[in-house]
């Protein structure tokens, strides 16, 4: 009990210190230094309507490349942890709710479609590769929920994943080779609000969307099989 109070107090002290610190930087006042630059230059420089997207994918595109890599790494990590070798993955057909099952069949393609819509329009709307990819993976999650025996073809998914990642890197390298700067915009900006605008953002977001979708699906595949295999009496 004393321990709980002590740590509670400690945490409150930390919170107090950070609050005190932040209070020096008035809430609601822009600190826009580079931010202002982005707002002013996004449209002429990138042709994207969504400034956040232009920041994530263009000005700070190198971060996002890292972010893609983080997810890639996590997927690999999960795959490593749940690696089951050549042993056939045991699957037990669980009786699932009929409504869920059939509903899933109908809804699933629409979810994929929406996912594609989201990552295709990342430069125009709040969506983007990650959101779209996540949505696609959600579709697969649904499939797994309804159909216990689902097992995706990992080779195809790895192909999509790798191609998605390569798209990003190659788009970046094009900039490197043509303008001596990684991720430099080598495509025309197009006209605002059109699908074909935003320079390299669209192809990259397509890549990211596919990559994220396949990666998250892989993670789901690993985790779900883990659960199922355990129910089926475990392996090892």
């Amino acid at each position, binding site marked *: 009990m004393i321990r709980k109070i002590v740590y509670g107090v400690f945490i409150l002290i930390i919170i107090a210190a950070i609050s005190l610190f932040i209070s020096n930087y008035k809430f609601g006042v822009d600190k826009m230094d580079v931010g202002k630059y982005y707002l002013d230059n996004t449209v002429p420089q990138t042709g994207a309507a969504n400034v956040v997207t232009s920041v994530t994918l263009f000005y700070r595109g190198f971060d996002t490349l890292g972010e893609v890599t983080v997810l890639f790494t996590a997927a690999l990590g999960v795959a490593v942890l749940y690696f089951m070798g050549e042993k056939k993955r045991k699957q037990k057909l669980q009786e699932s709710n009929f409504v*869920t099952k059939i509903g899933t069949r109908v809804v699933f393609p629409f979810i994929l479609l929406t996912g594609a819509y989201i990552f295709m329009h990342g430069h125009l709307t*709040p969506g983007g590769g990650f959101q779209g990819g996540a949505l696609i993976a*959600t579709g697969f999650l649904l499939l797994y929920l309804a159909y216990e025996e689902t097992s995706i073809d990992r080779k195809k998914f790895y192909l999509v994943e790798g191609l998605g990642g390569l798209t990003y890197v190659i788009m970046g390298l094009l900039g490197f080779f043509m303008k001596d700067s990684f991720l430099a915009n080598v495509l025309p900006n197009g006209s605002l609000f059109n699908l074909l605008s935003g320079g390299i953002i669209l192809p990259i977001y397509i890549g990211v969307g596919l990559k994220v979708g396949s990666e998250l699906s892989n993670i789901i595949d690993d985790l779900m099989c883990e659960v199922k295999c355990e129910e089926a009496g475990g392996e090892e």
Partner: protein
Amino acid sequence: MKVVDLIYLGLLAFATILMVVRLTKGPDTANRAMALDTLTTLFVALFVFFAFVFGRSFYMDVAVVYAIISFVGVLVVARFIERGL
């Protein structure tokens, strides 16, 4: 925002509070999941409402994604309740 909008928002807020009561009271996971399901549906409507009020159509995309995710989310929870993870 007009007054009518505010009234609408108020009603939804009140409904939200009531649902949150069920969410906290339970008494079991299934009941909580049910409360959560209703809440998410309400939030979808709320997104649409904000898209309307703030005049930013892209909120609709958010609403669509949110609807999909919450649907799958409820199914996950249902599965969890039924058999554990």
